[in-house]
């Protein structure tokens, strides 16, 4: 990885994976994320959970036992089952919202970088506007207005999280634009759209990918917070909703640690996983960080 000049257009995939494996953070992050991904996909199938099935009065907030490995929640449901089912929802929301943010951010970033003068500065003003508005109040307000179905939540998180990506992509586009092969493409008459898609996008993509991983971390935190504050989809037993019910039912005051610790811990682990992976990607792919 010492000399990037010989690989200007596309970093080789195998070299990348090797350096990923060499990075401690990279491996840790990947392991964590793969674990949760498998949990989300296979978990609910092996260990099903039905949020509609409530326990009897005597089964409310039971401490962990052989029957319920993580105890029961405020409605007598199995906490472990909820945890596993929640992984699917939290990850789904995080990934889909990130996809929306990434698409908006990349498109606007490339446009702003390529058409640098008037359109670019207009787009950047718009982006800065979104960067200034505090994230949680904006999301809260949008969620109140749009409603709290799971798709609205995904939309709300996606629509508020693209500004950082746009900034980063624009900076990278500006630097890629200066390269000689772009000048050649313009000289032979390639259209703006062709250049942006075929030349700029592939060179911007690695950085976008690294950025996306970090955005995913924020997206999952956002869903957890929104659900906790009561703006989540009540029909979806995500980790955030678990924490919401834990707080509402006073689990902390009673000392029902099995109810409020596992979902929070799960969120922390997943976010850590994304953060580690994102940092590792950033170190490998970001040309500015080399040689630190």
């Amino acid at each position: 990885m010492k000399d990037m000049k010989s690989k200007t257009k596309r970093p080789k995939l195998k070299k990348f994976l090797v350096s990923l494996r060499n990075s401690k953070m990279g491996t840790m992050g990947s392991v964590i994320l793969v674990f949760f991904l498998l949990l989300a996909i296979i978990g609910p199938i092996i260990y099903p959970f039905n949020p509609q099935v409530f326990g009897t009065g005597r089964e409310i907030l039971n401490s962990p036992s052989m029957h319920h490995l993580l105890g029961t929640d405020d409605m007598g449901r199995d906490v472990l089952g909820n945890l596993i089912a929640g992984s699917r929802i939290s990850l789904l929301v995080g990934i889909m919202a990130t996809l929306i943010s990434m698409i908006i951010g990349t498109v606007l970033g490339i446009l702003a970088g390529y058409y640098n003068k008037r359109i670019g500065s207009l787009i950047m003003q718009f982006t800065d506007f979104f960067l200034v508005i505090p994230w949680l109040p904006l999301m809260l307000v949008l969620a109140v207005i749009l409603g709290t179905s799971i798709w609205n939540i995904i939309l709300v998180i996606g629509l508020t999280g693209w500004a950082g990506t746009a900034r980063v992509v624009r900076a990278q586009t500006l630097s890629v634009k200066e390269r000689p092969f772009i000048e050649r493409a313009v000289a032979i008459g390639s259209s703006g759209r062709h250049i942006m898609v075929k030349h700029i996008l592939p060179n911007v993509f690695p950085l976008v990918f690294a950025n996306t991983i970090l955005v995913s971390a924020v997206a999952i935190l956002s869903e957890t917070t929104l659900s906790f504050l009561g703006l989540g989809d009540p029909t979806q037993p995500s980790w955030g909703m678990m924490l919401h019910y834990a707080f509402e039912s006073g689990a902390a005051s009673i000392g029902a640690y099995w109810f409020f610790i596992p979902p929070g811990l799960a969120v922390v682990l997943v976010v850590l996983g994304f953060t580690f992976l994102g940092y590792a990607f950033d170190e490998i792919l970001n040309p500015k960080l080399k040689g630190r």
Partner: protein
Amino acid sequence: MKRSYFIKKVFQALLTIAAILVFNYFLFRIMPGDPLQSLMRNPKATPEAIEGLKKLYGLNYPWYVQFEIYIKNLFSGNLGMSFLYKQPVYEVIGSRVLPTVLMVGLAEILATIVGIVLGILAAARRGKAVDVASLSFSLITYSMPTFWLGIILVSIFSVSLQLLPTTGLLTAGQSYSSTMSMLVDGIKHLILPTLTMSLVLIGEYTLLMRNTLIDVLTEDYITTAYAKGFNEDYVIKKHAVPNAMLPMITIIAMNTGFVIGGAIQVETIFSWPGIGRLMYDALTARDYPLLQGIFLMITFAVIIANLLADFTYGYLDPRVKQ
């Protein structure tokens, strides 16, 4: 700082504020449902009563006239009537600002001091125990939802150890024999919320200071300083840190938006009677005028904080001076 820099920053801030006003106006007008419904909640209201109410709230005018009224009201400090509290929004918000400023202010001061010190230590002894420990700490608090940290602290300090109270500014219904005892009670209530906010911020500021300082230490003038024979302590204190403070200050001020998000969570958990908790209550009650007012106020605060950060940067950075 250069006059042109000053003017440009103020102009940008004003532009953003104007955009926020427009955004805020339309945001709450596209909400589903007839605003009249939420105002009246009485399905038996007569058509005359509805018309009267419409005229009272100016809802019978076209949208651009309503916008004009909205702007005029804004400038005279009229933010509407809260549904929930049946008081002018301005008053409701005003009565809740102080607790938030108190808690957040304390947390920021604490976090800035500890964060800077830890960051310097981590950068100076890079790769060693201090560095690894503070990095791990930062990463973990950064990955935690703020409210979850609060819940954990409550369960440790309030439930298990029974040391600190869980909610409010002061103990409800308590009469105090002296001002001193009231102060002590208030401080006991202040500790956990402030601690929760601080821990999250410390994580972030430590990371920031460490990374900024590491960047600065790779600069040429640092090597020059060492070549001149200064020892490590001196170089770090007098050359590296002042240069690292610049981006630190900017980012701390720009962080205000994020801090507000944290404050909303912390105040909700601890029933701390501040702006954050107010927003949560307004949210639950769907009190749109109050929501709109709070949103406006919070955004203004963030924009002003950013502006002040820009000014401080312009003042401190010699490259921006005349």
